[in-house]
């Protein structure tokens, strides 16, 4: 089944609250909820040591989520966390001449190397936070006290190439949830 953000949000909306929310500590975690891009997982893991002050869940490179995965994300959001979800299951943004950068508009304006970006379709309540060739590839939306950020261009691999702008962007995300 094609996984759209609309479907995902509907699913988490009806999911039962995660039973152990009270047990969650302020932290930054990278969770493999079906990651299909090991580089992304590895890249984010190089960063979490610097993000301990945040309350951030990072879910690298998933083409779809299981019910358990959705419930985990829902629990973090209800806890007021920021969830950074890399979604790689959509259609690639088409381009003629190659262009290398995704334009991030929030929380800081930076250019970061694209990584096979997929186009995201904003649902009501979504704000576009990143574009590639004018197409939305990054969205954010408030979910309860939490913030769900969906990226269609995986950021994790970029950390392995040492792009300071990618680190800055992630740090800003974490700082906002301090």
């Amino acid at each position, binding site marked *: 089944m094609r996984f759209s953000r609309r479907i995902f949000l509907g699913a988490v909306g009806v999911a039962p609250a995660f039973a152990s929310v009270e047990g969650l500590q302020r932290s930054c975690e990278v969770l493999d909820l079906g990651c299909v891009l090991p580089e992304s997982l590895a890249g984010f893991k190089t960063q979490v040591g610097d993000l301990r002050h945040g309350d951030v869940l990072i879910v690298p490179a998933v083409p779809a989520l299981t019910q358990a995965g959705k419930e985990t994300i829902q629990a973090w959001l209800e806890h007021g966390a920021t969830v950074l979800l890399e979604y790689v299951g959509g259609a690639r943004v088409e381009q003629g001449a*190659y262009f*290398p950068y995704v334009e991030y508009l929030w929380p800081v304006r930076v*250019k970061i190397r694209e990584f096979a970006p997929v186009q995201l379709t904003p649902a009501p309540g979504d704000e576009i936070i990143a574009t590639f060739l004018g197409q939305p590839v990054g969205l954010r939306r408030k979910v309860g006290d939490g913030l769900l950020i969906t990226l269609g261009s995986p950021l994790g691999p970029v950390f392995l190439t040492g792009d300071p*702008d990618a680190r800055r962007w992630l740090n800003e995300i974490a700082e906002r949830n301090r």
Partner: protein
Amino acid sequence: MKKAFGDNLIPDGWSLEKGLDLIKKTGCDGVELWLGGKPWFQMNTSDAGVQELLRKVRDAGLVVSDVCNTLDWDENLSARDPKLQAAAIRHVERQIETARMLETDAILVVAGLVTEEIPYNEVYARTRENLQRLGETAAKAKVKIGCENCCSEQRFLISAREFWQFLNDVNHPNVGLHMDVGNIHDTGFAEQWIEINGPRITRVHVKDVLRHRGRCGQESVYTNLFLGNNNWPAIRAALDKVRYDGWIIAEMEAVYKYAPDQQFYDTAAAMDRFIHGRM
């Protein structure tokens, strides 16, 4: 960003004043002066002569973007012959001196030439050591030495990562990269060079490259902006990414058979579109 032309593009037989007037008419802000290139700027040009150069540049309503040289190909910092090496050091020192006189803060050198007789590792070590010493001289003069990526002509520092490592080894804040986006040919991509070496870029040369011609044959691999294989939107975005906001300098071969001044106008218009991202 500001735009300039190298004075080496001024047609032979033209006076400096006529060339500067043309550069100004194209809407440029400055001129790049090549030590050893045109008759008006040679190693034997006196300090008074350099002051006179500056006066002419000012009278034309321009400033000097940087000081290059044409001498490195015959006397390089990597030369084995101590006399040639000393001559190379001397002309780079002269560039630094004249940069101060000409009120600019950057020079260009082609640092290191690998030949059949002088192997890569020898060139690497000698060039690094000489640049470390010259970096001190440049620091005192508040000038930056930009080593140009001449890649396949130099047969040295062919890749972006190699250049980055070399500058790490030189490890001097006054030694960086004078980035020529037309010199990468088919061994890489200019935008990646910019991204990797970004903070160390002192100046940017622009021209386009016809990759399929390689380095063989008699046809030039170089051409005017937007006619070759460079990915100009990507290059512009990369400069933006590394927050380069300095000089964009046309350094190209004179390719117009007729009306050579037209190449200046066409190139200046292309540079404008490049700077403003209208491509």
